[in-house]
């Protein structure tokens, strides 16, 4: 039984190999839709996963601010705190 389990684990990531961008899935939670809608317009969502979990709330705020002010991300002002909330809760330090 134990041996079977190990093989199952080993094979699991195979499903994601060479997968398209749609295979990149963020954690479920309040605000995920907003993050997907706003961030994925310009870049894949693995940018969020790979930059975790080491940014605190301030760190994610700074990232959002860079994306909006320097990179031109058209994020509605009222959505910014909701996005930061999600990123901090699910991908924060």
């Amino acid at each position, binding site marked *: 039984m134990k041996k079977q389990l190990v093989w199952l684990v080993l*094979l699991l990531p195979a499903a994601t190999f*060479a997968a398209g961008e749609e295979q990149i899935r963020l954690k479920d939670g309040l605000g995920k839709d907003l993050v997907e809608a706003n961030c994925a317009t*310009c870049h894949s969502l693995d940018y969020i*996963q*790979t*930059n975790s979990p080491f940014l605190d709330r301030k760190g994610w705020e700074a990232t959002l601010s860079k994306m909006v002010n320097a990179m031109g991300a058209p994020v509605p002002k009222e959505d910014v705190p909701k996005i930061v909330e999600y990123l901090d809760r699910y991908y924060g330090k």
Partner: protein
Amino acid sequence: MNRRNFLKGVSGGLVLGGAGLALPRMALAMPVSMGPAGLPAGTLDASLLDALPGKRPLIRRTFRAPNYETPVAYLNDLYTPNDAFFVRYHVSNIPEVAAESWKLRIGGEALQNPVELTLDELKRGFERVELPALCMCAGNRRGLFQPHVPGVQWGNGAMGNARWVGVRLRDVLNKAGVRKEALEMVFDGADSGIAAYKTPDFVKSLPMWKALDENTLIAFEMNGAALPHWNGFPARLVVPGWVGTYWVKNLMSIEVIAKPFEGFWMKPAYRIPLGKFPNVDRFITQETAVNTPITDMVVNSLITNIEEGQRVRPGQSVDVKGVAWDGGYGIRTVEVSLDEGQSWRPATLGQDLGRFSWRLWSYRFKPARRGKLTVMAKASNRIGQTQTAELILNPAGYHHNLIQKATIQVM
């Protein structure tokens, strides 16, 4: 052993075999690690082996923009294969450039005769120059900074050594006539961000002295073949000794200007704090009171054939292999320590391909006692610079040249 590091390599290997894609030799014998254990947990989770068109499976750090890292097993050789060479883009639109219709536009306020060159004209109109040189992303090893800093979380493989063939940028520019008020040269590639949002286009500038250096090339060949699309087809800049950010890919235009270039990717991006690093090359027209553009690479080395935690027997001969490089002064020594840095012994240096290429090195020893053994490597260059024993922190995570440690188990 960090299981997470190795999982994907194993499964990736199985699937790759089925897809009939080429695998690194070592990957058949051992799984490809997603990176050193010091990377953020989220990076190790999100990374996987994936092949861009025309490329072997590399470590995918991000999908769009594409950022793919070369597994360390490929960095064991003098030249890094084109299809294993790392890929780094900043923005998402990367159109394929057709060689037949491509024209390099050369102009700007500080140029006398604007000109457009076809690929044929570029190749035939100027002296052909060959140069071995290391191309390394400024943020190579960013993922190993403690505390972590945001950005692409590279491990050790955002670099590669290649034999570049092209023409001297200065030969091309001198023909077009550079005016004496020229201050910087500006380079733009075919890549772009999302126009509707005004994402800053990836545009870089060089000081005139570096642009007109005899070793700065417009390259159209890499290791005897045309550049892969992902490494800059049909032509890219080769700026030997300087970090990869200046090596503009899929080159479309060059402008010679009389004032400092102001674009996001020059300022505030790609900056290091003033006076913190021992770099020699300065980009004075871009300096501010607090920071300066990153320029030449700091002296550095990498152990390429030891897996963390690897097991050896007492008395068994161990060959430590690696590469060493710097910003173009040349490697003088690589030293290895087996006693936590108390004593250092010289490694054997491989062939010298010139001061811009990396240098292979090796060190053989026989561990006598059972237990954990730490192997450390330290490179020094010909102007007396050496790797740092304490990481020099900076906001964007550049110039990671901390002396590397690899632990093996003698048992």
